């Protein structure tokens, strides 16, 4: 066994041990397992939310984009900051509602707000369709990182299996507490490793940051600015906006809002998370450093740039640390995805199908779903074809379709109807699926439009279709539901009072 592998194995063992210790002293009801008993303070919620910033996508894809495409990669740094500015106002409202109604999953939010189980099932379906490919992506990334960092002594498939089995065990036993504890270890590693190599590599190979960028600009003119066509400013802005809207719509982050013990947690995090997000900058620096040091990686191989330049530069111990950091960037989001998907299936698909089922059964079923979902993800990660790639590309656009129905439900009185929300989400999701599978862009839809319009992210079209259908169906159905709501309010006075609080 080489040194790098020994270091990776050591951190793997520490992560599992931490996750298992996290359970101590807690009875595992569904609320405890999935939401940590709604008792997390600012630091634990920070750890969970920082998971969004640092997944294997950021680690490999962030450096890969900087290496392969240059300036367009910067969009990854933008959308988070915008989402955090919204979070200051949005998350406390969501949290308060979730606490009062004891919501467990994101789909629960829709069920309660729109008083529609069917809408909950639909949202559950969209969630799982976006979550499973995301988990597959984490496992694939884990396989690549461990195999590269161990100098090929561990095959990717072995690493994927090991990672998935560890996830299954600690997620079933410790739930979201396990995620939060391993996230603490992950953040220390990332801060040390990603920031460290991002600072070191440009100095080592170019003698400074200005020198590095000057040499890149000389070798590839225009690489450090957005091009006039394709990834133009219009593309950049529309992609940033769409990603910012979708940011908290990922079911695992939406549910991480529920774990907080008070709403002050979110306002504190809104000021810390943008700063923490700057660590992405150092991943970019690594990707840029690799441009002239390890040239020739094209297509999806660009994602290997961080690992390749590290292999060319560092010895086995450092590579082991990089591999361990990469492993943790897969495990933490992976565990949150697993918990979310399992909770959603038990709570929003199984529970409505079996009336009168006990709390305990739902809780047991949620944990029983974990190995099943993990196994599906392993199989897809090891032999998934183009279908899974398509789902991955769709993921962000899929969850963004939930945004209109969430935001328009936050007012004191409900103006939009469940039928409207249902139809809007279906229309939006169908548009996303059609557009992604057929490769449609605004340039093919509107060949006569100016360039700036052609470059807009086509996800905007899906969102507009969604909102339009949402509004139209709401107009068509609101009269009926308004009279029904009035009747319900008259018979149950407490509900309306609570709603307007």
């Amino acid at each position: 066994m080489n040194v790098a592998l020994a270091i990776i194995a050591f951190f793997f063992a520490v992560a599992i041990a931490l996750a298992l210790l996290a359970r101590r002293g807690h009875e595992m009801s569904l609320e405890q397992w999935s939401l940590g008993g709604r008792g997390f303070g600012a630091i634990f919620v920070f750890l969970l939310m920082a998971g969004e910033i640092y997944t294997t996508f950021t680690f490999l894809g962030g450096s890969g984009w900087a290496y392969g495409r240059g300036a367009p990669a910067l969009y990854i740094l933008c959308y988070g900051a915008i989402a955090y500015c919204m979070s200051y106002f949005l998350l406390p409202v969501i949290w308060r509602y979730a606490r009062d109604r004891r919501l467990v999953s994101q789909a629960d939010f829709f069920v309660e707000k729109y008083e529609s189980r069917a809408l909950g099932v639909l949202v559950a379906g969209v969630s799982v369709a976006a979550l499973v490919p995301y988990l597959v992506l984490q496992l694939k990334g884990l396989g690549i990182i461990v195999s590269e960092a161990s100098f090929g002594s561990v095959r990717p498939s072995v690493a994927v299996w090991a990672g998935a089995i560890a996830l299954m065990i600690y997620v079933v036993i410790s739930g979201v507490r396990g995620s939060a504890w391993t996230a603490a270890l992950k953040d220390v590693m990332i801060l040390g490793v990603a920031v460290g190599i991002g600072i070191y590599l440009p100095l080592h190979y170019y003698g400074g940051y200005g020198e590095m960028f000057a040499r890149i600009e000389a070798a590839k003119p225009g690489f450090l600015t957005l091009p006039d066509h394709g990834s133009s400013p219009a593309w950049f802005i529309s992609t940033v906006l769409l990603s910012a809207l979708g940011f908290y719509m990922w079911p695992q982050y939406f549910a991480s809002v529920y774990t907080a013990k008070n709403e002050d947690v979110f306002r504190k995090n809104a000021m810390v998370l943008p700063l923490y997000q700057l660590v992405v900058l150092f991943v970019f620096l690594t990707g840029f450093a690799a441009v002239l040091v390890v040239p020739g990686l094209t297509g999806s191989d660009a994602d290997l740039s961080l690992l390749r330049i590290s292999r060319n530069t560092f010895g086995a111990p450092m590579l082991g640390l990089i591999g361990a950091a990469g492993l943790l960037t897969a495990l933490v989001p992976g565990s949150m995805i697993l918990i979310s998907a399992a909770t959603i299936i038990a709570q929003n698909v199984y529970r409505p199908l079996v009336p009168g089922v006990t709390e305990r059964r739902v809780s047991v079923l949620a944990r029983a779903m974990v190995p099943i979902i993990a196994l599906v993800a392993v199989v897809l990660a090891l032999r998934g074809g183009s279908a899974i790639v398509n789902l991955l590309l769709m993921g962000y656009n899929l969850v963004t379709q939930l945004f209109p129905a969430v935001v328009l439900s936050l007012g004191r009185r409900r103006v939009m109807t469940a039928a409207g929300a249902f139809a809007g989400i279906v229309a939006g999701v169908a548009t996303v699926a059609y557009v992604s599978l057929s490769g449609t862009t605004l340039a093919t839809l509107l060949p006569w439009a100016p360039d700036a319009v052609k470059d807009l992210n086509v996800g905007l079209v899906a969102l507009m279709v969604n909102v339009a259908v949402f509004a139209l169906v709401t107009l068509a159905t609101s009269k009926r539901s308004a009279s029904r709501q009035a009747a319900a309010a008259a018979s149950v006075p407490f509900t309306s009072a609570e709603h307007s609080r």
Partner: protein
Amino acid sequence: MANSVAPFRLRRYHWIAIVPPVAMIAGVPFANRVHTLVLGLPFLLLWIVGCVVLAAACMALLYALDHRATTEAGARQ
């Protein structure tokens, strides 16, 4: 939370929150026209990093203002 703290509500200074997103987004087409390095960094990168730091600063300012406003309002009650 302590009883002397008033509930959160929207106030006029909350408009501060819209400054970083607007600066970031509206600034991109202009920052992208600068092709020289500024402080050794591509200007677009510098602009975006600046806006991210501004976002953190604005959120900290809001937090401080809200903290004062809710405690004062709570004390008056």
